[in-house]
């Protein structure tokens, strides 16, 4: 039986041998009352996967509507709701909680801690997402339909939305509170609970990237909360923050939103960088090249992310100095990102590589994410962005970095760590099928969107001129293919491994993997490192 769903066997790690009263709680209580970082991590991942399905189905509805010119399936109002809720659910429901799930499972294991710093608050962070997620998903059934103002929720369009907008705003407040508590937990765990000898500069990259991500979250989630609170009071209490008739300004909303929004996109990519930085060395059988510069690059990305937000607003009409500043600042982010890409490649260089599924997804990530990074750079160039802003080019850009970036990294991480989570190996052939299928379908879906955007097809359009028909049809077919690849992933990889079907996983299934998570048995016992382990000089092995 696996550690994820089933009962626990009583095989304890050598590190907690002296306790004999360690029975995992059972039944529904185990999950609802959980205080165990591994169980909570599992809950987060299940939540994320569910949201990926819901968000994905919404995406498929969008693509189905756009398969041909003309309205066939939905009316334009519903179409806008689909787009909005797809964006919100994917960002706040699928990607962010997914990475928090990874953090919960792996960070205590990686740094040799017994659990997260605040185990009950950890569970609270998770359970807060349930009412919020229910409110968001339920908003489709409210009078007036789900919010339809785009995931960016620009004023004053939000002022015209029905009651579901308020449900959405409160749901986002709750999600924000959940993220902030989760981030505090992660930061404190990392800062205070590392095993002796695990200095910050010996810490695994995944923990590093999450440390910085958590900092970003704490800094910007409250700003989003502020922006939507003002939306709420403008809607119901007669304030005029975004209403020019009373001296306010709709563009102020955008500044505040993007001050959150831009760091938010790095929140969705930094943990991905962390996962890739674990996997590439493991399968190159060679230490990560330039560890220190990876840490500095990650920090630089985080710092720069605060001064580039207005690259989303080049067409709002800002002064020429503003455009120049934000153009240059944005482009600078390519530098630390370049350092990361180069370091990964240098890690592979003269390694001894094998290409199991985690590595395939990691290499796929590097390759396809870089394409998305380059289109980001093209968007960052203000004169070009005047043409591209709010077209499908932007949609292509961000799906390259979000799907082929964040989502691929999660796939990579799943394959890499699921032996530790479940105690069984996934089926390698199926993993490879999933990879190639996803890669091809992904590019069929999103590559043509570059052309659509360059040709001027605006985003958030329910219907479009006939000249855009063919590429839209191709994208829709690709989307269906990509979606089916994920159905395959869920049914033929995730569910079997969770049910413990498959070859039994050894303690360290990957020859070149390093780190404390491989020092405990597979599946990881319910309790690990209850007393801090003694580490060797590199802080990658337990010596006592």
């Amino acid at each position, binding site marked *: 039986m696996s550690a994820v769903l089933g009962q626990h066997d009583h095989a304890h790690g050598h590190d907690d041998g002296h306790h004999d009263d360690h029975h995992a709680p059972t039944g529904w209580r185990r999950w609802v009352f959980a205080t165990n970082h591994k169980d909570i991590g599992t809950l987060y991942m299940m939540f994320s996967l569910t949201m990926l399905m819901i968000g994905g189905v919404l995406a498929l509805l969008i693509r189905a509507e756009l398969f041909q010119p*003309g309205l066939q399936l939905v*009316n*334009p*109002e519903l179409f*806008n709701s689909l787009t909005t809720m797809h964006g919100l659910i994917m960002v706040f429901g699928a990607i962010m909680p997914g990475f928090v799930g990874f953090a919960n499972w792996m960070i205590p294991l990686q740094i040799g801690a017994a659990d997260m710093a605040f185990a009950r608050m950890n569970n609270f962070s998770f359970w807060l997402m349930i009412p919020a997620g229910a409110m968001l998903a339920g908003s489709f059934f409210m009078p007036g*339909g789900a919010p*339809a*103002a785009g995931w960016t929720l*620009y004023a*004053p*369009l939000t002022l*015209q939305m029905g009651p579901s907008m308020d449900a959405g705003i409160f749901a986002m407040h709750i999600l924000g509170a959940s993220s902030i508590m989760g981030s505090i937990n992660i930061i404190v765990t990392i800062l205070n609970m590392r095993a002796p000898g695990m200095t910050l500069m010996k810490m695994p990259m995944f923990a590093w990237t999450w440390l910085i991500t958590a900092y970003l979250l704490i800094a910007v989630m409250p700003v989003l909360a502020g922006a939507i609170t003002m939306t709420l009071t403008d809607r119901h209490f007669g304030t005029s923050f975004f*209403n*020019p*008739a009373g001296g306010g300004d*709709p*563009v102020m909303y955008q500044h505040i939103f993007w001050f959150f929004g831009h760091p938010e996109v790095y929140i969705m990519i930094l943990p991905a960088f962390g996962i890739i930085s674990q996997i590439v060395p493991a399968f*190159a059988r*060679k*230490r990560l*090249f330039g560890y*220190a*510069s990876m840490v500095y690059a990650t920090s630089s990305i985080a710092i720069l992310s605060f001064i580039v937000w207005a690259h989303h607003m080049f*067409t709002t*009409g800002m002064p020429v100095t503003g455009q120049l500043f934000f*153009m*240059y600042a944005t482009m*600078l982010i390519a*530098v630390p990102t*370049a*350092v990361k890409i*180069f370091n990964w*490649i240098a890690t592979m260089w003269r390694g*001894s*590589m*094998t*290409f199991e599924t985690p590595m395939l997804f990691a290499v796929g990530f*590097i390759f396809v994410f870089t394409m998305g990074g380059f289109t980001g750079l*093209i968007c960052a160039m*203000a*004169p*070009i962005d*005047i*043409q591209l*802003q*709010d077209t499908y080019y932007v949609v292509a850009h961000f799906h390259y970095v979000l799907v082929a970036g964040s989502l691929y990294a999660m796939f990579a991480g799943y394959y890499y760590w699921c032996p530790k989570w479940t105690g069984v190996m996934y089926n390698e052939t199926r993993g490879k099928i999933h990879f190639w299928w996803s890669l091809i379908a992904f590019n069929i879906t999103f590559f043509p969107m570059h*052309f659509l955007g360059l*040709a*001027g*097809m605006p985003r*958030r*359009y*329910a*219907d*479009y001129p*006939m*000249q855009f028909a*063919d590429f839209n049809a191709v994208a829709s*077919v690709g989307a*269906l293919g990509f979606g089916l690849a994920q159905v395959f992933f869920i049914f033929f990889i995730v569910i079997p491994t969770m049910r413990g079907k498959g070859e039994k996983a050894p303690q360290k299934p990957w020859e070149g993997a390093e780190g404390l998570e491989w020092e405990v048995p597979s599946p990881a016992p319910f309790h690990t490192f209850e007393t801090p382990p003694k580490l060797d000089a590199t802080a990658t092995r337990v010596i006592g």
Partner: protein
Amino acid sequence: MKSVFNGLASWMWAAALWFGTGVFSLAHAVSDLPGGPGVNQLNLTQGVTKISADQAWLHWFMLIVCTVVFLAVFAVMFYSIWKHRKSQGHKAANFHESVAVEIAWTLAPFIIVVAMGLMATKTVVAMKDTTNADLTIKATGMQWKWGYDYLKGEGEGIGFVSTLDTAQREMSNNGGPKKGEVVEDYLLKVDNPLVVPVDKKIRIITTANDVIHAFMVPAFGIKQDAIPGFVRDTWFRAEKVGDYHGQCAELCGKEHAYMPIHVKVLSAADYSAWVAAEQKKMAAKMDDPAKVWALDDILARGEKVYAANCVACHQANGKGGGPIKPLDGAAVVLDADKSKQILVLLNGQNNAAMPSWKALSDTDIAAVISYTKNHWSNKTGQLVQPADVLALRK
């Protein structure tokens, strides 16, 4: 499990095939729209302004630099993937740090991106220079149409509203162009295009009445948000006569996809002729707000106004739908106090979900109110005169 897998796989293949054939049978015989999108167009629109040419150049420049860097970087990676594999018997080396290399590959991208920025700087400055325009036009975004007012230069005083061709809007609702049906300017055809002279610097001032819209014409290389309560501006100087098409590029509610922009660029002589004709038409159209209308005349007029402005939301049956309030049997419409409904039309309601219609003439407003008060099941017999409206305008 295996059989489920096989079953699902064959089902997926079938679905893929079905979609694949769908795509090919679908390929419409549509051709490029001059001044608008091309069929399967791969790159930026070949524009007719200096700015759009600069943008196209910059895009090529970026594309080439990025492709070169991309190929260089991934050549190294794939070489390594090819050679340094375990299956090739390659043993892992043991280096993992080199300050010199790190500095080099931090500086190189830094220099490249600064060079990129420098290339763009001149164009940014040029784009933002809206001074010394020959003609200034205000473009007002409204849910869901564009209002154009010629503020300064030849044609000053002209003003009109431009909406999507209603037949095309209908067509969209009915599932789009039918198989074999070719509509070159599908969703791009408007009743009243914006008309400007060639080779003149045109300054477009954008603003909006309700929510944010964006005025975009790819062939001119412009896109400028239209923000309620504020003005923004942009400019272009079209170098070729012709018709140019764009669309609203900021999510503005349900009809966002249906507020196209059509700019007609005319030679100087043609433009002057157009201005003259337009001014004559305006003079003729100027209704005397003091005129007292008979019920039948005003209802006929009101029906037209309703069809042009109100039907999109309130529907032909006057029942509205969703958040849109019905007019049929509505209390405000039936109210004996006519001023209530007049005020709603003048000022809007529900945070501009019902927008303000004060841009319409007094006669039009009076006509459409009279119409709604006497149509469907509403049989009030009330008649609103233009003077009533004028009296309530602030």
